[in-house]
């Protein structure tokens, strides 16, 4: 599993820019950013280098930031690749809280999934023919 930085954002002008600036000024590279939005607030999810330090930097800048463990899975670049993975989870009655996708160097697609880690998820993923990506493959 990999470390993902999660930041709570009020829907106020400039908060997302301030977040990116804080990470940038600390010299930390960001690899993926996604924002889930509601009417009142958003939750930014970030894959970046040195996640623990990034988290500290954000906390010092006045953000509520924390780390959560998520699965990063390499998805083959062919139609229906992700669908078959999610079907596997469905069949095993495993709830996927959220998912998003980004590409890394070499054009590989990485899916990030938040799943209750108490279940033996990794085995199911590999059993279905997918590869779980290690942290060192994504960030320093």
């Amino acid at each position, binding site marked *: 599993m990999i470390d993902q930085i999660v930041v*709570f954002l*009020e829907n106020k002008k400039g908060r997302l820019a301030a977040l990116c600036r804080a990470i940038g000024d600390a010299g930390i590279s960001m690899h993926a950013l996604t924002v*889930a939005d*509601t009417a009142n*607030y958003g*939750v930014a999810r970030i894959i970046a280098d040195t996640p623990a330090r990034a988290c500290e930097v954000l906390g010092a800048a006045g*953000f509520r930031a924390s780390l959560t463990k998520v699965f990063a899975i390499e998805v083959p670049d062919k139609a229906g690749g992700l669908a078959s993975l999610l079907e596997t989870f469905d069949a095993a009655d495993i709830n996927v809280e959220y998912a998003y996708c980004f590409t890394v160097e070499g054009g590989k697609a990485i899916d990030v999934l938040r799943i209750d880690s108490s279940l033996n998820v990794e085995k199911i993923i590999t059993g279905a023919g997918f590869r779980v990506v290690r942290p060192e493959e994504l960030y320093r």
Partner: protein
Amino acid sequence: MAGPERYFQPEIEKMDPEALRALQLERLKKTVELCYESIPFYKQRFDQLGIRPEDVISLDDLARLPFTTKQDMRDAYPFNLFAIPADDARVQRLHASSGTTGNATVCGYTQNDIDVWGDTFARAIAQVGGGAASILQVSYGYGLFTGGLGAHEGGIRMRATILPMSSGNTRRQVQMMKDFGVDILACTPSYALLIADTAIEMGYDPANDFKVAGAILGAEPCSEGMRRDIENKLGVKMVDIYGLSEVMGPGVSCECRYQTGLHVAEDHFIIEIVDPKTLQAVPDGQWGEVVFSTLSKECSPLIRYRTRDISRILPGECACGRTLRRMDRITGRTDDMLIIRGVNVFPSQFQEVLANFPEVASHYQIILTSKGPLDYVTLKVETVPEFDFDEIRKIENLRQRINGELKSNLQVSVDVQVSEPKSIERSEGKARRVIDLREKGN
């Protein structure tokens, strides 16, 4: 605190409610007569309303009598609300409020007034498990302030041994509490906590090393968290005692060891709870302004004194066996009251609801705006650092649960907004709890 319930005046404290109402009526009639005959202010008020003392024939007639406000008392400075002249031999003592804004409010006490006061405080000593064999440490300030001498008189009536410390010199307070085997402490909650912390700092474990077992604390607000802190550190049962210098001083009402509301000394006071806007009585259980009429006071009787304190009558019987009705702990002042969509709401009620949600921090802010003709309430809360906000479902679930609790407790629909940490304004540690941006005219 184990053992059987102790009473100081069981014949009063466990009196049959009907007999108690009869006693109240008899005393109310006397008080009304005294006010009318001896205090021009009341005679004028009664005459304006066309009421004569003999018109009071049942307790329900109380609702027809005029109110007395703090301003009335200030305007009467110093002695215009006295039924007996201050220099009369019967008047033994004067107490006065600090009067930080405007004139002080002054009350006179005859010996009987002082004895009644002592009796009510003595009941508190029994309520916390004390008795004539107790050593009572009075660490309220002695002086014009009613705390110190009120507790002192309670000790006298109880025939307890009084240690009149007053406040200050906290290390000596601790030393004597330990060396003299004090079992009951009377002071303010913040001072009790300071005594506890000082004792611990001095290397003692007062909860185990000291004999102190009961604390009668009042004169300032005390949260449940602070109460537990005091109880755990000192190893005591703490009861909240209520009083105000205009009405008498500590003893007007006091908790028993079950800590489920404060038993009102109904033989000496009639309590009413009114809507502060309409001044109409509200049903038992509903919050409103506390109003007291005195029944036994000879020098400074009061009819329907508006305390500006917010509480409610707690219906039902108490496990301690006392029949004296209970009021809830004071949750705020009428000055803080908000009227939202016609419903009276106190900021402290929001606080009470939020206290049941460990997910949110204690800082909150109420923002009132207008949406057309309707009031719109936004409640900003911050989650505690441990809260996992990665799952939006959890945040939404938290918002809904808070909203539901507020709706059922306050009868007001509230838009709960989860805010970023420290985004809720704090000034000098004390937050501005309410921001009213409503268009005026409603």
